[in-house]
């Protein structure tokens, strides 16, 4: 009964009372997903009609979505879910069960996703009963989209296997829309264009399409599912022309008038920037100080709130609140840099989840905002939502992406530079000797770029009294016998230096001692040994989080009186997307082992899965090879 809403983990969670549940399912068992076709969509009709609206919303899109479900196996209830937001209204919901009109009581809720603090997205949901095998239930929903700019895409895939789906657009002659077909390859989608009085009717039909499936590390939906990109260009419903996004100029113009409405307090920025760069001599030092200030002091909280979803919060507000979304953080970075005398701009960008670029002007092209800095003729991009990335380092999700940079009434189109895997090098060096059956010695780590960011983000997510043991547990992979002593690290908040970690290692029982021989596993970490892909189950390509580059070196000092009887063979796998290099060398009284695993690309296509699996098996096989020492 204590109102303690802040506590994420209550002290007495579920300790005391056995909650009575009256003969009803209490728990759901974990982790089994099946592609059963117990319920399918026998027919889905989605209709979008552009119609003349009011003075405020001169063109509105009326949409009717009718979905017929069929029970193929056994009776059940499914949940119908429809999203809407400030720009979209649901007017009417109808339900028919086995041909009879049924009562429907939709729940309307705020839609909350874990990492978004607030969004104007709402969800309307309700159960749809399927009465028996072979029976059908139908849901009809009428929606209105107040501004055609917000109708950006229509997908053909559904949450259920779909026998037939038709998407229709009714476009009056006064409306200019471009409909672009995306990812149609591999699907049979028929299309028809007909003139109907003063309108044109576009009809697309797909048959027998598998259900969408959510898989971890998948590319964004715009890469993998067939869909239509809808671009509303201009309209003249009452004879008066309204331009939507006819060209990128129009989209930029729309963005621009929104950001121009943001009243940044220049004086406050001057004062803060002055404080941050105080005592710093060089431009680079000043730029870094400002960038890192925002990274360090502004908490990222995502807001997606209607029109506010496109408009940054005022810089001084973000500064005072100490939190902001990407737009707020980009705008603050920009304003601080400008106040310190630099040429900084806002940028719109679509991260690598999005399959489009600005050649197709649409609100679905971008999903992120960053800051660009034009310094001595070179462009730098600053994304302060990446809390531990360095200056001039780029996160995978924005690398190579097209970026729309503000430039007064014009804009600049650029690309964020690509970075080689070496930006993210995770380097480990061990020098060890054998003591009894332990390996003892010194270990050093150096991490940079996204590998440093990955580790620092996790470490700073720990309470500081647990931080050191969390780091030890990361280094030892949770194994007690990997005993770490005298652990030292470089400053854990630094973004422009490599993160260095050094410790004394006593790896107990790491050496197999049999008769006169020692068997030694020089690879403790065995990275990616279990990375084979279940080809039968996996449906989509895989997107790795970033271009990892692991360089691990181990130097084993051969004890007095022993010689090396066997070192494992080298392994070299060099594919366009990745490479594995394992090398063993005997040099005097030492065995040198070097491993380098590099992801040259993060996108692993389905076509490459078989080769990947074979390569991983080779890698695992190589890991299973031991160095053998024998008594002389």
């Amino acid at each position, binding site marked *: 009964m204590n109102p303690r*809403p*802040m506590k994420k983990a209550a*002290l007495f969670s579920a300790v005391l009372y056995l909650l009575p549940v009256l003969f009803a399912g209490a728990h759901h068992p974990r982790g089994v997903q099946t592609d*059963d076709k117990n319920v399918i969509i026998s027919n889905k009709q989605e209709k979008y009609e552009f119609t003349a609206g009011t003075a405020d919303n001169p063109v509105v899109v009326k949409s009717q979505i009718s979905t017929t479900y069929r029970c193929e196996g056994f009776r059940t209830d499914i949940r119908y879910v429809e999203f809407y937001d400030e720009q979209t209204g649901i007017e009417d919901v109808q339900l028919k069960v086995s041909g009879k009109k049924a009562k429907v009581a939709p729940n309307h809720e705020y839609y909350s996703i874990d990492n978004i603090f607030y969004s104007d997205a709402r969800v309307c949901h309700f159960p749809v009963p399927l009465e028996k095998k072979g029976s059908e239930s139908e849901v009809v929903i009428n929606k209105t989209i107040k501004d055609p700019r917000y109708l950006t895409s229509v997908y053909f895939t559904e949450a259920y296997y779909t026998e037939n789906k038709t998407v229709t657009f009714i476009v009056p002659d006064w409306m200019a829309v471009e409909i672009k077909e995306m990812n149609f390859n591999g699907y049979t989608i028929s299309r028809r264009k007909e003139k109907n009085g003063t309108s044109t009717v576009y009809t697309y039909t797909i048959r027998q399409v598998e259900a969408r499936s959510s898989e971890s590390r998948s590319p964004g939906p715009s890469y993998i599912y067939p869909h239509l990109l809808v671009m509303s260009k201009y309209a003249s419903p009452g004879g008066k022309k309204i331009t939507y996004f006819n060209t990128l100029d129009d989209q930029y113009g729309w963005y621009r008038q929104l950001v121009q409405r943001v009243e940044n307090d220049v004086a406050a920025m001057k004062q803060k920037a002055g404080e941050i760069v105080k005592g710093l001599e060089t431009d680079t030092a000043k730029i870094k100080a400002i960038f890192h200030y925002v990274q360090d002091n502004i908490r990222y909280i995502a807001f997606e709130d209607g029109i506010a979803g496109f408009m940054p919060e005022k810089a001084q507000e973000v500064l005072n609140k100490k939190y902001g979304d990407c737009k707020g953080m980009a705008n603050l970075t920009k304003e601080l840099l400008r106040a310190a005398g630099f040429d900084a701009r806002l940028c719109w960008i679509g991260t690598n989840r999005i399959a489009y670029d600005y050649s197709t002007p649409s609100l679905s092209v971008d999903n992120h905002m960053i800051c660009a800095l034009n310094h001595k003729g070179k462009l730098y991009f600053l994304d302060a939502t990446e809390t531990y990335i360095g200056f001039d380092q780029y996160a995978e999700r924005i690398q190579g992406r097209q970026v729309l940079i503000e430039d007064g009434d014009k804009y600049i189109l650029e690309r964020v530079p690509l970075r080689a895997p070496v930006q993210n090098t995770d380097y480990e060096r061990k020098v060890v000797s054998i003591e009894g059956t332990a390996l003892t010695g010194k270990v050093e780590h150096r991490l940079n770029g996204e590998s440093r960011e990955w580790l620092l983000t996790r470490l700073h997510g720990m309470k500081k009294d647990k931080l050191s043991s969390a780091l030890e547990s990361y280094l030892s992979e949770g*194994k007690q016998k990997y005993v770490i002593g005298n652990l030292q690290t470089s400053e854990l908040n630094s973004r422009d230096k490599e993160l260095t970690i050094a410790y004394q290692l006593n790896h107990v029982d790491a050496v197999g001692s049999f008769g006169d021989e020692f*068997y030694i596993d020089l690879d403790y970490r065995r990275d990616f040994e279990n990375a084979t892909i279940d080809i039968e189950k996996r449906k989509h390509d895989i997107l790795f989080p970033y271009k990892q580059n692991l360089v691990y070196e181990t130097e084993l000092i051969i004890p007095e009186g022993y010689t090396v009887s066997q070192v494992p063979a080298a392994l070299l796998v060099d594919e366009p997307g990745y490479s594995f290099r394992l090398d063993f060398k005997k040099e005097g009284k030492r065995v040198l082992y070097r491993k380098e695993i590099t992801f040259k690309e993060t996108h692993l296509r389905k076509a490459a899965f078989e080769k990947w699996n074979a390569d991983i098996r080779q890698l695992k096989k190589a890991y299973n090879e031991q160095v053998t020492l024998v008594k002389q």
Partner: protein
Amino acid sequence: MKLSTSLLAALFIALSLPLFAQNDAEYKARAEKIRKEIWDWDIPAFKNYVVPDSLANEPAVILARHQEIKAVSKTKVKFLVITAAKYKEIYLTNTYREMVKINDKATLEEYSELSYQKYKRLNRFFSRKLTGRISVIGVRIIKPDGKMQEVDISEEVLTTDTRNEQQNKIAISGLEVGDILDYFVSQHDEEAANSRFEPYVFVMGDDKPVMHYSVHCEIGANCSVEYRSMNGAPDFKLKKDADGDNILDVEMKNLAKAPVDLWMSPFRQLPLLRMNIRMGDSRRTNKKEGEVTKNPDFRTVISEAKSDMSSDYFRNDLNAATKYYAGELNRMIKQARKKDPVPKDSLPYYVYYAFRYRVFYTVRPQDKIIIGAERNYQEADSKRFLLMLSFVLKRMKIKNEIILAPSVYGPDSKQAILSSDFDYVIKTTEGKPIYMSAEGVFTHSNYIPAAYEGQQSPTLTPVAKRSNGLDFQNEAMEKLPVTAFSKNVQIEKLSLKLAENMEDMLINRETILKGHMRRGEQKRLLLFEDYYDSERKAFAIKESFMEEFADSRKNKALADEYTAAFKKARNEQKDYFMNEVTEQFGTKPKELKNYKIVNMALRHNNPDLIYQTNFTIDGWVKKGGNNYIVDIGKFIGEQLQLKPEQLKRSVDVYMPFARSFEFIITLDIPEGYTVEGVDKLISNVSNETGRFVTEAKVEGNRLGVKVTKVYSHAFEKASQWEQLTAVIKAASDFNTAKILLRKQ
């Protein structure tokens, strides 16, 4: 009938029209007043912004925490059209204020958002002016330089907005590491009700140090209070004010961080105060108005448990229900006995299984089709299940009593303060006692859930009275029996063979789970289709529900549908087995070739869950020259590893139950190889708390390894921790054991 329901509906619509009683302006004014009042509290701890040096390195320090509860109930009379009604207006305020120093980013994250229920509709049938529940929050930040800034609550956003409730949340603006956050949530309830019961727990411990913790309660003269101070918590100071209201205060200072880690029972280990406030009609609350009871006699809680039982029995007409079930069960047992005659003293077992069958196994045409794994996780309201079963048994002339069993994770019997501190267990009282409980679909007869084992428990025998109510006889105390480690066993028989590629290990495994060890895997692995069929046949029920449906014109189609659903469940079973193997061995097998349930363990006389799995693991055989090293220690599965901070322990150890593990591993030595390192596999760590013993020998072309791990007791004193850690360490050490296969 029709008229009255529509009248009622109209009434409800009328009542629910104004969304919330107060409008925004009124709310704001009230919130301001409440904020001012709370910020003005004269509690010195909230004015102290200094963290002592000894706590300077803590990620977070609670400088002050205070909870204030005010409860008032007023008797009112409402004149209705024809008659007048007496009712209570209940006013309850509960304010929780806390001031915390934030010393790192993780703590900042923890306190960076505040969610709360701003409005909730409560009953105001008799008085429209009552507001229901309104909550007010206040947040301010004290910067390291002492400057204080108040957070603008209007920055909050709505997250739920329904007719009955509004939830809001706010991101705390301006909060940084190094700041002190001072916030409160103040909840104000006004409702019309006959009575209200409010239980509270004040825990004098947290995962952060707490420098000051106080509670202040003002309880109206016509309410009553009882409280219990436990595990060394201080007592409330009690006084009466001029109006006769009871004022209760308690304060504690400098509470160290409480251990909240492995194998704890916080209710028995942390200082805490539990308090119940009873408002309203004293006939309903069974307490005198204005009464404050300190550490009430637990027998008063037993009385409440009895009255709960009584009212459940009569309100839900269990008399009729049990009569019906007794008839049903009699028929089932009669039928079953034709097939399998059993001695009379086994009758209680039959009754239990028949009742379980009716509750969990029976399928009716109108039921939803739930036959996948989720069916295995179904639970019953255990109290009602057992109360009904007790009377069914009685109707079948089986004498029994109900035991009020406290959980080891709650207070012990004598420390109980709520009837819900107890669950029920049935015990038959003639001949050798048989215990019955209701954990779920697979609970055996003569079984006591682990959490109740060894607990001193009140027992009673309910008897139905002619008038409304139950009588209770034979009240006593009984200590529930405890199962030994030898009864709760996991046995793994593994036969290992190297694959031809000399890389993969082929594993034939048989798993036997006994006692408390079997429950989790029964839920995960069994199929309703199989266990339904097994129990149906055991009761000699001729037709399955599928056959019944198939024979009926109306439900014919259903049989087909169940067939489809069964097929789906059977397809999913492989994944559940895959998960089971992966969890046991800490690695996903390369391939799961076969899996099979050998014994479902549905009844006490066939009690061990047995299943077989056949799979391949790669990566546990390493190559060194011409020889192979086998990570033999990994085959006992991932063992518990204590974190460095867990090695020292000052609090007692509450484990789920005494238990033991046996691994019987045989490895076929490939032709042309000899095995080395066998002697190093032999070890023995044994002490009072348990043991880890390994034996190994080569016989012919087979290496045999036997590993036994025992946790002797469910409970150990903190002083035994060192001995227990020796056993735990020995087991985790064995995980790295290796043997060599040497080429001859």
